[in-house]
């Protein structure tokens, strides 16, 4: 019996060795401990009660979820609509930009125009966001310029508003839209457009029926890549939004400070994860349908 077992173990070991599973094991173990397990803990904590100092205690409760959809619903809705608006603006700005880059005839020009999109994003996200504080502030550059030209008499309030957050999000995530669309327009064969013209299509029809459907995978990937980090944004609303531009990411952050509430923070973060997962599902299904069509 014992020998049988050890033999069994040996062949299994040998099998694992041969299959390469052994090589994957340490990494899987790491990701399980530091990625999966923490998320599971968050899930459990989100159902626990709040103890003194904001820690989690038994018994189980649903109150944090109730509060999320009750008191904090307005902030949840704001986060989703700001992220949605960011995605739409990035698409409207990013698609023509990606189209412009990938239709440059000379390879060098194409590389330079692409590089000009990527280069600003080599700088730290904090600093890129901070730059908008200089521009949008009460005594900032834009107000200074407008006042000196005489367009306005009073400085505009732009910083610490939802507008500022929107600008910051679009600025922060625009390349995530441009790059996948660029990749799919680059692959697009423009002879199809000629064929469409030959078959009597006008410009709008050629774009809507030929170019857009064939570059749809890039559009979908870009939308997912912009929407997801926008929903969970923390730095942008923190530096540009003030209290009026508060998003769910800031709310979560607050639950981990001095007068925090860890279970509430966990519940908020689970709800945010659900939104993210939902948008990922939409992306996967849309992508599959697009490929199938």
């Amino acid at each position, binding site marked *: 019996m014992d020998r049988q077992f050890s033999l069994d173990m040996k062949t299994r070991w040998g099998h*694992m060795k041969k299959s*390469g*599973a*052994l*090589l*994957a094991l340490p*990494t*899987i173990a*790491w990701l399980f401990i*530091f*990625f999966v397990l*923490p998320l599971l*803990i*968050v899930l459990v*904590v989100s159902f626990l009660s709040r103890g003194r100092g904001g820690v989690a205690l038994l018994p189980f409760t649903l109150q944090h979820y109730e509060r999320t959809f009750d008191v904090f619903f307005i902030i949840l809705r704001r986060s989703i609509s700001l992220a949605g608006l960011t995605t739409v603006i990035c698409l409207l*700005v*990013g698609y*023509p*930009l990606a189209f*412009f*880059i990938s239709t440059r005839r000379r390879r060098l020009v194409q590389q330079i*125009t692409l590089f*000009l*999109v990527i*280069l*600003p994003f*080599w*700088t*730290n996200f*904090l*600093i*890129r966001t*901070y*730059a908008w*504080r*200089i*521009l949008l*502030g009460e*005594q*900032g*550059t834009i*107000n*200074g310029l407008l*006042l000196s030209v005489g367009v306005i008499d009073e400085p505009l309030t732009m910083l610490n508003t939802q507008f500022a957050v929107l600008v910051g999000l679009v600025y922060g995530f*625009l390349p995530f839209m441009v790059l996948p669309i660029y990749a799919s327009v680059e692959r697009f064969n423009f002879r199809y457009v000629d064929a469409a013209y030959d078959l009597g299509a006008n*410009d*709008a029809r050629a774009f809507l029926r030929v170019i857009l459907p064939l570059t749809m995978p890039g559009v979908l990937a870009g939308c*997912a890549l912009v929407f*997801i*980090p926008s929903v969970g944004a*923390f*730095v942008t609303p923190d*530096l540009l939004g003030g209290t009026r531009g508060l998003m769910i*990411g800031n709310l*979560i952050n607050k639950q981990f400070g001095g007068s925090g509430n*860890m279970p509430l*923070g966990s519940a908020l*973060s689970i709800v*945010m994860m659900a939104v*993210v997962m939902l948008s990922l599902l939409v992306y996967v299904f849309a992508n599959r349908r697009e490929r199938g069509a």
Partner: protein
Amino acid sequence: MLINEGAMGRNRRIRRLGQAGLWLNPMVAYFFLWAPILVLVLFSFNSSRSVASFSGFTLKWYSNILNNVMGAESAFSTAIMLNAFRNSLFVGTVATAISTVLGTMIALAMARGKFPGKRLIDGLLFLPVVIPEITQAISLAIFFKVAFDWFALLSGERVFPGFHTIIAAHVTFNISYVAIVARARLADMNPRLEEAANDLGANPWRAFWRVTFPLILPGVISGALLAFTLSLDDFVITFFTSGVGTTTLPVFVYGLLKLTVTPEVNAISTIMMLISTLLIGISLAMQGRAASRV
């Protein structure tokens, strides 16, 4: 006939408008992308404290940050900033080393191994890249708190967050990026080369070090450089997992940025931009050279 010509004329006008738009849009977009950065750099050289108008060139703010001066209201110490930078380099180096090994291993297993559950592992590798940073940050913060509480209960000794927690967190988000880059390289490589090495009598170990590894090395190096850059730049996850005395540069800079707009902060930002641009430029140049050699 006449109607048709009218329609064609309209079509042509729309097309001209569309073409103008296709030129105008990129110009506006490039302006939008570059103006904030250029304004930031410009005002780091402005002789007055204002960011509303430029009044003259100065290097005063740069010398201020080297001499422990940071505006009027906030306390600032050059020594603390340099210490934060050292911490960043340390965390980045260790996290990059660990994540490069783990990421390359799983990339190899996924590309060459035959075992069940590969799609699940794909998902596991993909998720850390897509879920919002704040989610990962707070889940790690809670995880470490729970783990340290249990540890204190069992052993009676208290452990506090510090370098070990930051490094563990950085390794976790870096693994996926290293694996993605290394896998792309492995996909380009011809598996016949390994089979040939085996046929010629090399054992798998030897075949790996003499054939596979040298061929995927450029991918491993660019993965490592990507990991290092991400590590140096990370703010959100570090913010939630760092302890007392283990502040990294981005966490330190965040403290400054939140306070107020000062020309000294603009100067620090300009220096940081210069450093990261140089770093990535060098890594790209190395990648280019490595790619052209293979």
